[in-house]
């Protein structure tokens, strides 16, 4: 795991780094720190990371405007901030967790734990309502309500929307899955579907399973996941 910490207070950055090392022993590859987001951005281009720990109020500036560009990235974002007013909005835009300051190691650890379990473990208010997509240098915001299903495409994920549009997101399917609400189910290694869109399940010979969506799309269903899926749907 590669981690980047963006924090302007040296002692707090020190604390975060220390705790990351303690929590992620064994899996931690590198920890980098930056004091400004511009500095971090440059470093991220050179060395992509898996998780970004970010303080929104760097040097007194309000970070909400940079949040959108951050969540469009390929990495997961954990906000570590003093001002919890912004927590709700941060979650809406698809951060993995929002850790208020001051924080204990346990709290930080539970944030990292979400990498595996995903947002579905937590309260519904902490799932994303928008996904930020990087397009032509800008960031475009796609409401999650518009997303029918998500298809993995290598290091990217393709969001398929109700109106037929397809948007490419920098995050992998796993990472997107961690942010989406529980009614999105991973039906296949490469497919994530909104359950309410499934109208029928088909089983073919040779253990080939398919899910039919409202708009007629047919998506493959993983063998191991079929039983679970059928149970969930009925």
């Amino acid at each position, binding site marked *: 795991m590669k981690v980047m910490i963006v924090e302007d207070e*040296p002692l707090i950055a020190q604390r975060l780094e220390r705790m990351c090392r303690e929590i992620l022993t064994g899996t931690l590859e590198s920890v980098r720190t930056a004091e400004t987001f511009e500095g971090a951005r440059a470093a991220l281009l050179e060395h992509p990371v898996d998780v970004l720990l970010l303080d929104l109020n760097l040097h007194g500036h309000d970070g909400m405007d940079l949040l959108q560009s951050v969540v469009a990235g390929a990495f997961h974002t954990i906000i570590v901030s*003093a*001002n*919890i007013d912004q927590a709700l909005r941060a979650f809406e835009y698809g951060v993995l967790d929002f850790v208020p300051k001051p924080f204990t190691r346990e709290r930080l650890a539970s944030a990292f734990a979400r990498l595996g379990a995903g947002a579905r473990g937590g309260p519904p208010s902490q799932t994303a309502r928008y996904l930020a997509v990087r397009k032509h240098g800008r960031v475009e915001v796609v409401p999650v309500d518009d997303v029918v299903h998500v298809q993995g495409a290598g290091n990217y994920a393709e969001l398929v929307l109700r109106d037929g549009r397809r948007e490419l997101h920098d995050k992998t399917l796993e990472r997107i899955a961690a942010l989406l609400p529980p009614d999105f189910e991973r039906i296949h290694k490469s497919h994530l579907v909104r359950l309410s869109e499934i109208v029928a399940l088909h089983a073919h010979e040779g253990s080939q399973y398919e899910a039919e969506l409202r708009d007629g799309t047919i998506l493959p269903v993983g063998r191991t996941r079929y039983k679970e899926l059928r149970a969930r749907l009925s």
Partner: protein
Amino acid sequence: MVPRCVLLLLVAWAVLHASAATETQHPPVRVQLGLESPSAPVPRFPILRFRRGDDPRWAAPDHDDSAWETRGYAEGLPAHTGVYWVRFTLDQARPPSPLRDGLAIGVVASYDLFIDGQLIASSGVVGADRESEVPGRLDNIIRIPDALLTPGEHLVALRMSAWRSGFKADTLRLNLAIGGYRALIERRVEQGSVSVVVIGAGLALAVVLGVLWWLVERRRALLLLAAAALVAAVMQALQAWRYLGAYPFDWHRPRLSAIAMSVAILGGLIVAALLEFFEMRRRTLWLATLGAGMAAIWVLSGGWYHRLSLQLMTLALLFALAITVLAVRRDRTGARFILAGILVSLGALMAEPAEILERSFILTFGAPILGCVTAVSLNLRNERRAARRAQITAARLEIELLRKQIQPHFVMNTLTTILEVVEHDPKAAVSLIEALAEEFRALAHVSSERRIPLTQELDLCRTHLRIMSLRKDVRYTLHVEGETLDLEVPPALLLTLVENGLTHAAARGQSVEFRVAITASPERFRLVVTAPAGTPTGRAGGAPPEGTGLRYVRARLEESFPGRWTLEAGAVPEGWRTVIEVKETRRP
């Protein structure tokens, strides 16, 4: 400004004087016509036969007075002399005309009244010299005995002396009215009744305004209006005294003089109240000019007291008009109401100059007083609203200050730092905790204040910088140039600017200096806060984020020094500079 006004006033005065003079050539007859009833009192202007000396035979109807002097009503009778006799005839109408059994006499003389040779009534004691004269009542209503009510002519004789008439004039007027006895009495009471209304209203108004002044708002204008209402009541009491009470005739001139004096005082009080209310400059000059004008009028009045009152009131109203017009030009609150009142007043004065002391009194004096009261109320209302708004603003500012300082960013980051440091560097943790406690203590102390000593504000800044130094591992210092003296500033004025300046990144171990330069004179002070540039954080030109920080500063400045402050901020080579200037700091 004042000379122009005085000129205008003189012109207006001349105009009004001329018109007023023609109106009041003859002092108005006190008898009020207009009652339709047949027994209504009718003034009599009989031809008087006059003879000096004293002989009881002159009362007899059959005495030959053809050689006696004839005097018309306009000529009057001699004053400051006695004894003399006056004879005239009175007609009694035939039935079915109602009987005119009452005779009303008003004269500044003592007399014995004979009708057809019989002594009917005496007023006072007629005296051959001043010492032996005893003044009788000014007004008498005499019931004519039934025996003397036979239709036809009757002879009335008056044996009179007028040593103590009191007026400077050499002649006096004999006011006569004949009519129903009851009607005469009723008429007299009626004349006083209007005054009673005004006395009541004036006293009530005086009490209300006085209580308002005492308990609610100690404005001099209110007190002057209360005094004016009281004087109006007193004036009307003096006026009514003649009709509802009675007094010896030698009190007549002092009473008229007192009435005129109270009119002058009333006019002066109204003018003074207006000067106070509109906060005019050179009030003493205005009042002195008014006083001089009134004194001049008094001296030149020639003893016609009614005209004197009219002129005094006119002068006062003209001054009031001038002041109010100026106030309307300067857009003072309530000026238009008062102007309307004064115009009504002047209108009433010009329409019925004879009645300003009686029927028109309420209009003449009441209108401007009402206008003033309305204006004062308007003012009070506006001030209360402004005070409420200021209170709300003050409360909001206090809350904002507290919120600012316990806002998560500062507190939580500091606590996190303490957490980090407490195990590895307890001494540093203790310093941080102490500094944090000190800042909170100071803020709690000052947040409810409007102004705090500048030294306290600077201490607050230093504490804050100490905390930030410990947190960021940067040496923040505050350098102060100039004397703080006993200057007072709103709480967190400089702290907010320092906080804004802390948004710049600084390298660890670096020394960063904030500067505050103070220049002060008795009239104004100037604070220059320079926040160092530091390492640019990506925001161009080192402009710190505005928003709530400066909004708070501006609101506090306006609260403490309304309309007397300026704030300018801009980039300088050293960093970001904010200049605050405040004028007239000594005004409460």
